[in-house]
């Protein structure tokens, strides 16, 4: 008996929808086994991870709060991933965006201009783009692999943040904590749902999702990116510029991540902190893949991943699980999902060995 994958003539829609669901179930099973092995109570962990986020309005609103940056960044990254441009440095673009947006309130802590907030958002988005543009330049000009360059730029961004918060931007009255001054009200995003911390950045993310959908489904520019990702030689044959695809992918990814960074400091944080990101830039990669790199799917996967984030916070308290458990879960989820993806274009075939 031989088990092998046989290519299907058509992508299977059922498999496309089932893959993330099955992957999710497998990741839960694997996590339960792992948590049990580590001596944690798996029931309590699962309860905290998956149910508690829905049990109180406050918890649920926190899910929506987390969803904004994850969704925004993932939409930006997915565009590039479909074009085979692998920007894995959204973390750095987010940090640089947050830094750039913080410059105004740090320099004018008493500022009350109505232009402050829009200017911060523009600076954040612009800085994120600029940071990603470095990678685009190195890739198009010097052929340097964008995966490694964007990742290195993330590590650099983290050090720049440390430098600013330990040095020139440290709040002089902040008891020596590595954080900036608290921002004035004029530098904060309006709250979307009264009584929660959810701000209008969730709207940015939803608008970005619609725009991403239109780009990838209806715009010729999006089609060109898809061709470049699926068959680079076909793109060259048709005259679709590779450099343009690289620039577009990286700039859009950087823009989304930079804007998300600005929205974090102008939103729930209200200041620049070392923990400005909590790994959103990396999680967004998983969100993008789990959503099938499809703008609509990503909305769902961003929501699910936010639940895991909030659930992980809960589990830290109630089930004594370290934060890392969330990363382990995310890693497992992506592993299972990638395996599951195979069934979209392949079916399993069991064949007998030939008789002698």
């Amino acid at each position, binding site marked *: 008996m031989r088990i092998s994958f046989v290519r299907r003539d058509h*992508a299977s829609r059922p498999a496309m929808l089932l893959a993330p669901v099955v992957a999710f179930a497998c990741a839960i099973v694997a996590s339960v086994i792992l948590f049990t092995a580590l001596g944690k109570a798996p029931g309590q962990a699962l309860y905290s991870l998956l149910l508690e986020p829905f049990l109180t309005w406050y918890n649920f609103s926190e899910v929506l709060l987390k969803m904004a940056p994850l969704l925004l960044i993932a939409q930006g990254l997915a565009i590039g991933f479909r074009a085979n441009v692998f920007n894995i440095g959204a973390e750095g673009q987010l940090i640089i965006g947050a830094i750039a947006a913080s410059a105004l309130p740090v320099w004018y802590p008493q500022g009350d201009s109505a232009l402050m907030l829009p200017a911060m958002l523009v600076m954040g988005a612009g800085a994120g783009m600029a940071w990603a543009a470095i990678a685009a330049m190195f890739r198009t000009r010097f052929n340097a692999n964008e995966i490694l360059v964007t990742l290195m730029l993330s590590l650099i961004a983290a050090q720049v943040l440390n430098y600013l918060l330990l040095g020139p931007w440290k709040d002089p009255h902040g008891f020596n904590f590595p954080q900036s001054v608290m921002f004035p009200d004029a530098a904060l995003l309006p709250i979307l749902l009264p009584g929660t911390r959810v701000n209008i950045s969730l709207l940015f993310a939803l608008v970005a999702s619609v725009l991403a959908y239109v780009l990838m489904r209806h715009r010729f520019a999006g089609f060109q990116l898809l061709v470049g990702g699926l068959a680079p030689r076909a793109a060259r044959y048709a005259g679709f510029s590779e450099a343009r695809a690289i620039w577009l992918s990286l700039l859009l990814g950087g823009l989304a991540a930079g804007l998300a960074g600005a929205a974090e400091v102008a939103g729930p944080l209200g200041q620049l902190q070392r923990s400005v990101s909590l790994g959103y830039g990396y999680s967004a990669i998983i969100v993008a893949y789990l959503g099938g790199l499809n703008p609509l799917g990503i909305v769902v996967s961003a929501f699910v991943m936010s639940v895991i984030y909030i659930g992980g916070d809960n589990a830290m308290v109630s089930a004594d699980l370290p934060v890392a458990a969330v990363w382990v879960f995310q890693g497992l989820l992506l592993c299972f999902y990638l395996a599951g993806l195979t069934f979209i274009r392949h079916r399993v075939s069991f064949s007998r060995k030939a008789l002698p």
Partner: protein
Amino acid sequence: MAALLSLQAVSKRYGAVQANAGIDLVVDPGSIHAILGENGAGKSTLMKLIYGVESPDAGVMLWKGQPVNLASPAEARAHGIGMVFQHFSLFETLSVVQNIALIVPGKQADLARRIRALGAEFGLEVDPEAMVHALSVGERQRVEIIRCLLLNPELLILDEPTSVLPPQSVARLFETLRALQARGMAILFISHKLEEIKELCDTATILRGGRVSGRVDPRGHSAKDLATLMIGRAMPPPLPATAQDPGEAWLELAGLSYRNDDPFGVSLHDLSLQARSGEIVGIAGISGNGQQELAALISGEIAAQGAGLRMMGQGVGRLGVAARRRLGFAFVPEERLGRGAVPEMSLADNALLTAHRAGLVARGFIRRAPERAFTAAIITRYDVRTPGPEAEAAALSGGNLQKFIMGREMMLDPKLLLVSQPTWGVDIGAATEIRQRLIAMRNAGAAILVISEELEELFQICDRLHVLHKGHLSPSLPVAETNAEAVGAYMIGSAA
């Protein structure tokens, strides 16, 4: 005399395709046995089963009367079966002797000595220390054959060995094969070329649609009989050749050169040619002599250095692919999946690939209705057998996909059409159709440049020929005034 190899009711299926169905085959020792069939008849699959690359789903294989179950090529070689692949199984970044050391035991120094000795004995000279990427296609074939011979096989399988050789070299290969036969070696010779089989082989098993359609002694049959067995009906008649008065030159190469930075590629030297409205110009030559580079230079996929390339009367050296297409240029590349079409995309989206200027895009938005209508028109007009515009390109057979791509490019009504290897891997019916389309287009006033390895095809459809050899182009040879031998001399670079 006991059979060396015999297959009984062997079958193999790939997904929806029944590649081989109930094949019976008997190969006698010391015979040169032809496996004849057109593209897609199942010849290559059958050879992979015999060489242990694939396992059959059903059936029995007997080697010297004993049932064998070959799980791998290594087992086949251990039994005494060797195979020369059509698209060689050599590694470009390794040297000749390293390639051979991969499957032949022994020290590399010893192997090098034996390679030289065998080469001298059978007319297969090759430098053991040369890197494979620096070898011509013919030399690579010699390496493949030597690699088999070093293992002293009793059965040697050659998959379409003459498709990569100029006429003169074919004669030399046949001498080698007869010398091997004289030593008692049996040879399985796979081909779709009837005359060669009549000349070389003593037995022929003919495949059609994955089944055996005949077993004959080819020396006692006419090419017409063999063709009927091969395609199930008479060969299509040759195409009517009607001379046209050519018009304006829509493609001009004047001393075009290209220095290739790719160490595995070919540089082009001082190429000059013209393709005028109302004529088909052919580029003959063995693949790997600069064909890919020439096509990419004309299409704009690689940028030409300096002037010397004009299209529709204007210099296009600085224009990109899209700009050249706007002038009325269209191109059918030799690789269909992955270049001419995106395998995972629907035919409709594949129409959009190059036909977007035919009103399929408005203000940057894709117009789905015209896209579908355009695709449906290609499908009906060019007789593409497919469920519809939503079918994925990868699901089409080679011939149907080629008709689709050809149709897409022709529907753009180009002034200048470049076609590379128009009938590679295409069955005879589709190939004939494609050639007729090209001629009809020429008659309608297009300039057509055809790059092809099939000399017969070029003689059928072209008005003039050039031969590309090692990046150099021969002078223009009017088809009416030349013949295969003269062209062959240019193909090996021995013409005066």
